[in-house]
């Protein structure tokens, strides 16, 4: 069954003075539960816009988005926030950990918003740090992001994305800011997560990252130009 379905999704940015930019020109596809999809494209192809719309951070100008059986279109801001909290886990290129919170507290953040009790939160955060393979989690868990390396930060960020056991992980160039030896490990984590059943969507311009996925959707100028199963 389709976990995420896009039907003729359009996004038009109004730049003022009657200038309009059509970032997505009617995109349709569906993502199966437990799949590992890469969305590829050069910068300006509309892949970031697509990620924002799939992640319910932004609204489509036209078209329907159905995630986990729920139509996103008619939700208000409050419902969208709740939906993001429970259903979507974000991983960003620049990690985006909150600087004045420790690694564990960063992971707990989505659980705080979900109203998970404190003791349970801490237990789950610790467990997630082990899943993403942060070395010495008891000690490093209390470090601030600036005391961790880029690869460690991204692993904490993945743990944070997993906090509320979301239906889908959305990763935006997750290896873009990492050294080569680090990005291999990050991709391995995604692979392992996918093998354990998580649905993963990675947005990237890097073909090497795209190779990891079992399906590649290629965008160009706001339209899908290629959609293939690579494995």
């Amino acid at each position: 069954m389709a976990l995420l379905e896009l039907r003729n999704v359009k996004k038009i940015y109004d730049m003022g003075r009657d200038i309009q930019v059509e970032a997505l020109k009617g995109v349709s596809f569906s993502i199966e539960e437990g799949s590992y999809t890469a969305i590829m494209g050069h910068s300006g192809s509309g892949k970031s816009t697509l990620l924002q719309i799939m992640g319910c951070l932004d609204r489509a100008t036209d078209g329907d988005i159905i995630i986990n059986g729920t139509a996103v279109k008619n939700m208000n801001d409050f419902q969208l926030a709740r939906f993001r909290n429970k259903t979507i886990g974000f991983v960003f290129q620049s990690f985006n950990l909150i600087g004045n919170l420790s690694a564990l507290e960063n992971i707990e953040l989505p659980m705080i918003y979900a109203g998970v009790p404190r003791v349970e939160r801490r237990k789950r955060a610790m467990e997630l740090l082990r899943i993403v393979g942060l070395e010495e989690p008891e000690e490093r868990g209390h470090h601030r992001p600036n005391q961790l390396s880029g690869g460690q930060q991204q692993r904490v960020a993945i743990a944070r994305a997993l906090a509320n056991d979301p239906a889908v992980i959305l990763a935006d160039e997750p290896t873009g800011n990492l050294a080569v030896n680090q990005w291999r490990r990050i991709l391995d984590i995604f692979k392992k997560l996918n093998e354990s059943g998580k649905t993963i969507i990675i947005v990237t311009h890097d073909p090497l990252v795209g190779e990891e996925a079992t399906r590649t959707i290629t965008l160009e100028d706001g339209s899908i130009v290629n959609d293939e199963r690579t494995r």
Partner: protein
Amino acid sequence: MEILMEAFRSLGKDKVRTFLSMLGIVIGVIAVIVAIAIGAGTTKNVTARISSLGSNVIIVTPGFSGGFGGRTAAALTNVLQETDVQNIQNMAPDVADVTPILQKSFNVIYQATNTVVSVFGAYPDAFSILDLPIQYGRLITTKDEQNYANVAVIGNTIATTLFGNQNPVGQTVYITTGSFQVPFTIIGELQETGSKLTFNPDNMLMIPYTTASVKLIQLNGGVSQILASAKSANTALDAASEINNILYMRLQNANQYRLISQNQILSTVSQTTDVLTLLLASIAAISMVVGGIGIMNIMLVSVTERTKEIGVKMAMGATRRRIMAEFLVESMFITIVAGAIGVGFSFLIAMIVTYLASGLGLTVIITWPSIVLSFGVSVAIGLFFGLYPAYMASKKSPVEALRYE
């Protein structure tokens, strides 16, 4: 709870900035509390001074004439008469004692020393009405009164001026009137009393009324003032209105005389000090508002700086309400802590003011309402001035906030 911890953390990140943004509120709270405390202290001092008169004392003075169009008001003379005193004595049931007063300044000579003294001619009752205790010698008696005796009871300050440390009782002083010098024998010296409203017994020479009216202050039956006491503090108002009725019946003009009683003065004074306190406190309150604007400024900067963080939190599922609450808690945290610091410091400042101004007789009394008020206002300022920045934070679009570098 997490919101509080988070607010504490993010404020702790830039301690100097947080401290500076607190400063306005801290100073404002101190200013408000100390201003009200000084007001309360002053009220207490003034009240104590007025109360020294005794709550049942009523003074009748002549009214003023003129005073319009730039002319100086002049006290009316020959308004009050001895007959008024008799009428009050006979017709006012709530009046205990009443005495006419003849009062005028004279040059008084003792050996080689001379000084200007307020000579005060009254019935012996005046001592009990004004509650004047004797230090040496004796008070004036009815017999002195009947005999037109040249005797005087001397106030504490003048006794020191004329006699130094010598006991004045039994000495003779001369009161100069025109080209005559009238001898008076000092029969007693008063204890120091301090000023009693319109009288300052320390600077008075008190002589029998009869002696004064015949030998020094001839007003042809007129009197300078009338002094009366009510039977008790509870009947003071009744006594005052009885006196008022008696005087009005004869004079038919309420502007010709004035009735002064402690209650009436107290209410005037408390109105005046209340207005002054309000004025001081509102000036101080302005600094709290300025502090609030400072906080709003800082919070707006903070919201802009943390745009990315807001975007991330929104992506993680923070609702707009939650973002708003986070920033609101921060601004309120600032003002609550600042308010508490202000309350603490105001006690210190009050102590310093009391110490520095001890010579001036200034008392500083910190009152509970002023603490509650200023603390409450500072919390309200945190809420009010934090609302707009928090709203701005919550209204950010998650996409744009995430893109912000």
